[in-house]
C-alpha cells in the first residue's frame, strides 16, 4: 500500500517535471534578439487610430504600438475569458455585486513621448469612447460596447474602476480585444490618426499612405526583455499577385495575417515549400442581409424559402475548396466557444443535409406566396465590389434560381455601400460580419439589437432582446451557453440575417520567424508581436 503510494507520487512528480520541461522548452530555446520583421500590408489603412476604424487593416500594423488594460494571451490561439492576462493592469477584480470592475495599474510605464502613464489616461480613453469627453473621435464605431458602463473613475494614479449599470461579465472580453488600446490623454485624436503615441513594445516611426508603415523597438518597454524584434516594416502592396510573389521570393518574412486565400495557399506551398502556413477560421461570417421592411421579403414565407434554398456546402467548396465552416451567428466549434451543438444546428430549417428536400420545401413556400415555374420573382442582390463579397453573391444568385427567384447582381462602390444599406435601398445584400471577440455580447448587441448602428437590417425583436440581456448578465458560463444557443437558433429561425458560412483563411511565414500565433476565433486581437523573434 505504502509502496504503491510512493510510486504514485513519484510518477506524479516525474509527470509534473516533464510537463514543466515541456512548457519551458520553447522558452529555454532562447529567443534571439534583433532583426526587422517585414510584412506586406493588404491595403493602405485610412489612419493610424485603431479606435476610429473597424477594419483589421488598422489593428495589424498599430496594435504593436499600444497596450490595453488586459489582453488575450498572445501565445494562445483560442481567445477565451480564462486566457485574459495583465497588460497595463497588473490585476483586476469584480465587486461583490458584479457591477464594478477595478483595475490596479502597472507603475512606471511611460508613453513613447516620455510622459508617464496614469489612471487619467484610462479615464480619458473610455470617456472618449463613451462620447463623454469634450474631445471627440472623428468616428466612434464601438461606442455601443460601453452601453452598460455608467462611468469610469480613478483612485489615485494607479487604479481605475468601471461602474456598470448592471452586471456584464463580458466587458472584460471587450477590454481584452485588440480594438481596445489605451490612448494618452495628452495627444489629440487628430494626432493619433497621423502619429500614434502608445506605451506598447514598438514605437511608431512613419506611415506613408500607400507605401509603408514603420515601427521601431521601444527601448523603454515596461515588460522587461521584450520585444525581441528591432522593428516591424509593412510594405503596402494591394496587388495580391505582387504581394504573394514578394513573399515567395523572400522579400517578406510574413504575409499579411489571415489574408491568404485557399487557392493562393496552394501556390505558396508549391513555390516556397519551407514556408509555415496555417489555415484557421477568423470569426468572419458571410451572410445575407434581407430588407424585411418592404416587399417581397417582408413576407416571412419568402424569407424562409430563401434560407431553405442555400446549399452551404457548395459555397464552401467553391470559396474555400472545402475548408470553411457551417454555423449560426456564433463561430462554429471547436475554434468557436459559443457554437450550437451539431444536432441543434441541423434542426434549423435550411441547415439539414438534404439540399433537395430543403429546396422542395422552399418551392412550396414560394408557391404559397404566389410564385412558381411560370412566375419568377425578380430581385437584385447588392454587394460591394470586392471579390470576397462578390463571389458568394454570384453563387447565391445561381442557387436561388432553383426556387423561382431571378436575381441580378448589383455591384456597389465602397463609398456607396453603407449609405445604400442605411437607406434600405436594397432587397438582398451580401455582407461580411467580422466579430472582434468571440463573445455573444459583442455579436448579438452589435448586429441584432434594436437601434444598434451596425444592425444593418434594423432587425428588432423585443423578446429576443430580453434574452440578450439575460445571457449578458449570466455569470455561470454553462447556463449562458444554453441561452446563447437558444438565441442563435431563434435568430436563424427568424431569418434575421441568414448566415451562409464562416470563412477560413491562411497566414504564412518563413521558417525562421518564431513566436507567431494566429488567433482562431477572431482576426482583431493577435497582433501585439512582442513575442515574435527571428531565428537568423
Amino acid at each position, binding site marked *: 500500500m505504502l509502496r504503491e503510494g510512493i510510486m504514485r507520487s513519484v510518477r506524479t512528480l516525474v509527470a509534473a517535471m516533464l510537463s514543466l520541461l515541456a512548457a519551458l522548452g520553447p522558452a529555454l530555446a532562447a529567443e534571439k534578439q534583433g532583426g526587422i520583421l517585414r510584412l506586406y500590408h493588404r491595403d*493602405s*489603412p*485610412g*489612419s493610424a487610430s485603431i479606435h*476610429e*476604424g*473597424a*477594419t483589421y*487593416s488598422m489593428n495589424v500594423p498599430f496594435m504593436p504600438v499600444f497596450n490595453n488594460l488586459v489582453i488575450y494571451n498572445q501565445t494562445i490561439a483560442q481567445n477565451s475569458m480564462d486566457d485574459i492576462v495583465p497588460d497595463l493592469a497588473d490585476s483586476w477584480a469584480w465587486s461583490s455585486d458584479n457591477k464594478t470592475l477595478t483595475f490596479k495599474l502597472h507603475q512606471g510605464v511611460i508613453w513613447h513621448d516620455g510622459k508617464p502613464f496614469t489612471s487619467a489616461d484610462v479615464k480619458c480613453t473610455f470617456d472618449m469612447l463613451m462620447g463623454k469627453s469634450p474631445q471627440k473621435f*472623428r*468616428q*466612434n*464605431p464601438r461606442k455601443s460596447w460601453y452601453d452598460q458602463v455608467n462611468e469610469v473613475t480613478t483612485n489615485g494614479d494607479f487604479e481605475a474602476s468601471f461602474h456598470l449599470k448592471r452586471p456584464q461579465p463580458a466587458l472584460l472580453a471587450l477590454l481584452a480585444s485588440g480594438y481596445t488600446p489605451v490612448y494618452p490623454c495628452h495627444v489629440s485624436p*487628430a494626432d493619433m*490618426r*497621423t502619429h500614434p503615441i502608445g506605451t506598447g513594445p514598438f514605437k511608431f516611426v512613419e*506611415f*506613408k*499612405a*500607400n*507605401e*509603408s508603415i514603420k515601427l521601431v523597438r521601444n527601448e523603454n518597454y515596461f515588460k522587461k526583455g521584450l520585444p525581441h524584434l528591432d522593428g516591424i516594416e509593412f*510594405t*503596402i*502592396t*494591394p*496587388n495580391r*499577385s*505582387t*504581394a504573394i*510573389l*514578394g513573399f*515567395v*521570393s*523572400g*522579400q517578406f518574412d510574413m504575409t499579411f495575417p489571415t489574408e491568404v486565400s485557399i487557392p493562393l495557399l496552394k501556390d505558396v506551398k508549391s*513555390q516556397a515549400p519551407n514556408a509555415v502556413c496555417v489555415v484557421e477560421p477568423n470569426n468572419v461570417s458571410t451572410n445575407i442581409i434581407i430588407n424585411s421592411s418592404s416587399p417581397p421579403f417582408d413576407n416571412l414565407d419568402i424569407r424562409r424559402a430563401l434560407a431553405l434554398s442555400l446549399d452551404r456546402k457548395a459555397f464552401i467548396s467553391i470559396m474555400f475548396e472545402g475548408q470553411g465552416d457551417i454555423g449560426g451567428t456564433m463561430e462554429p466549434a471547436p475554434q468557436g466557444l459559443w457554437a450550437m451543438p451539431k444536432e441543434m444546428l441541423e434542426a434549423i430549417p435550411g441547415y439539414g443535409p438534404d439540399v433537395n428536400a430543403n429546396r422542395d420545401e422552399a418551392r412550396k413556400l414560394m408557391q404559397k406566396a404566389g410564385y412558381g415555374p411560370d412566375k419568377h420573382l425578380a430581385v437584385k442582390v447588392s454587394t460591394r465590389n470586392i471579390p470576397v463579397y462578390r463571389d458568394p453573391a454570384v453563387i447565391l444568385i445561381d442557387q436561388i434560381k432553383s426556387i423561382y427567384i431571378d436575381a441580378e447582381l448589383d455591384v456597389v*462602390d*465602397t*463609398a*456607396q*455601400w*453603407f*449609405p445604400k444599406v*442605411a437607406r434600405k435601398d436594397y432587397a438582398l445584400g451580401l455582407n461580411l460580419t467580422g466579430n472582434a471577440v468571440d463573445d455573444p455580447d459583442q455579436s448579438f448587441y452589435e448586429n441584432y439589437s434594436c437601434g444598434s*448602428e*451596425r444592425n444593418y437590417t434594423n432587425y428588432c425583436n423585443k423578446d429576443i432582446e430580453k434574452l440578450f440581456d439575460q445571457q449578458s448578465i449570466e455569470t455561470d458560463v454553462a447556463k449562458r451557453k444554453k441561452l446563447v444557443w437558444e438565441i442563435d437558433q431563434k435568430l436563424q429561425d427568424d431569418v434575421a440575417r441568414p448566415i451562409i458560412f464562416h470563412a477560413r483563411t491562411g497566414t504564412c511565414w518563413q521558417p525562421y520567424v518564431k513566436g507567431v500565433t494566429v488567433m482562431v476565433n477572431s482576426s482583431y486581437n493577435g497582433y501585439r508581436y512582442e513575442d515574435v523573434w527571428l531565428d537568423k
Partner: protein
Amino acid sequence: MFAYIVRRLVLMLVTLFGISVIIFVLLRIVPGNIVDILFAAAGYVDPADKAHLEHDLGLDQSIVMQYLHWIGGLARGDLGYSYVSEKPALDEILPRIPITARLAGLALMFSASIGIPLGVISAVHQGTRLDYALRVVSLSGLSLPSFWLGLLILMASVSLFGTMPIFNPHPKTWSEAIAIYCVPAMAVGFRSAALTMRITRSSMLEILRQDYIRTARAKGASEASINYRHALKNAILPVITVIGIEAAFLIGGLIVTETVFNIPGIARYLVEALRWRDYPIVQNLVMLIAVVVVFTNFTVDMLYAAIDPRIRYTD
C-alpha cells in the same frame, strides 16, 4: 514667332483652366465622398457625425466656393490637405514625383533606343520579310495588356532568379537600383517602343518618297548615305512629336505598371486617391499630369517650329 509663342501660352492657360473646372466638377458629381469611405472603414454611418465631418472638411460648401478655395490656394502654392493622411497635399505629392519621373525617363529612353532604330530598319527594308516581322512584333507589343506584361515579367523573374525587383526607396547596391527602376521601365517602354517604331517607320517612309531623296539617289549617293544622312535627319522631326504623344501614352502605362510593381509613384497614387475620394490629391495630381502633358506638347511644338522653317506660325 514671338506672337505665336504668346498665343500658344495663353491657349495653354485656357486649357489648364478648363481641365481644372472639368476635373473638379467630375469629382463632385461622384456619388459618395471621403466621409462615406471613412464611415465604410468604420463599419457604420451616423448622420450627425457625418455632417460634422463634412463640415470640417469643407464639403458642405457650394461647389463654386470649394472651387475658388482650391484655385485660390493653388495660386498661393497651397495645394490643401489630403483628406486621408491629413498631411499637406504637397508633402504627399512631391516625394513621389522623382520616382515616376525616373521611371518615365527610363521608359522613354528605352522606347527611343529600341523604337527609332527598328523603325528606320523597317522603313529602309520596306516590303521585305524583315519589315513584316518587325511590324508584326511591334503590333503584338501593342496588343498585350500592360498589366499582363508586367505580371509575366515578375513571374519570370521569380522563377528564373528566385527574386523580384520590389521597390525600395534606398537601394543598397547599384544592381538593385538598376533592377527596381529598369525592369518596370522596360515593361512600360516595351509598348511605347512599339508605338515609336511604327511612327518612325511611317515618317521615314514619307521622307524616302520625297523629291530631294530622289535627287540624291539620281546623283548617285550611296543607299546608306541616303538613308542615314538625308532621310533620317529629316525623319527625326516627326519622331520628336512622338514624344509629345507618348507623354500621355506613358502615363496610362505607368498607372498600371506602378500598381503591378508596387512602386509608390504618382500614377499609382492617383488610383488609390480616387478610391478614397481624396479630392485634394486627385485634383492636384490630375492637374499635375495635365501640366506635364500640355507643357510637353508646347515644348515639342516650339522645338518643331524652331527646327523646321516650313512651319507657319498660325494655328
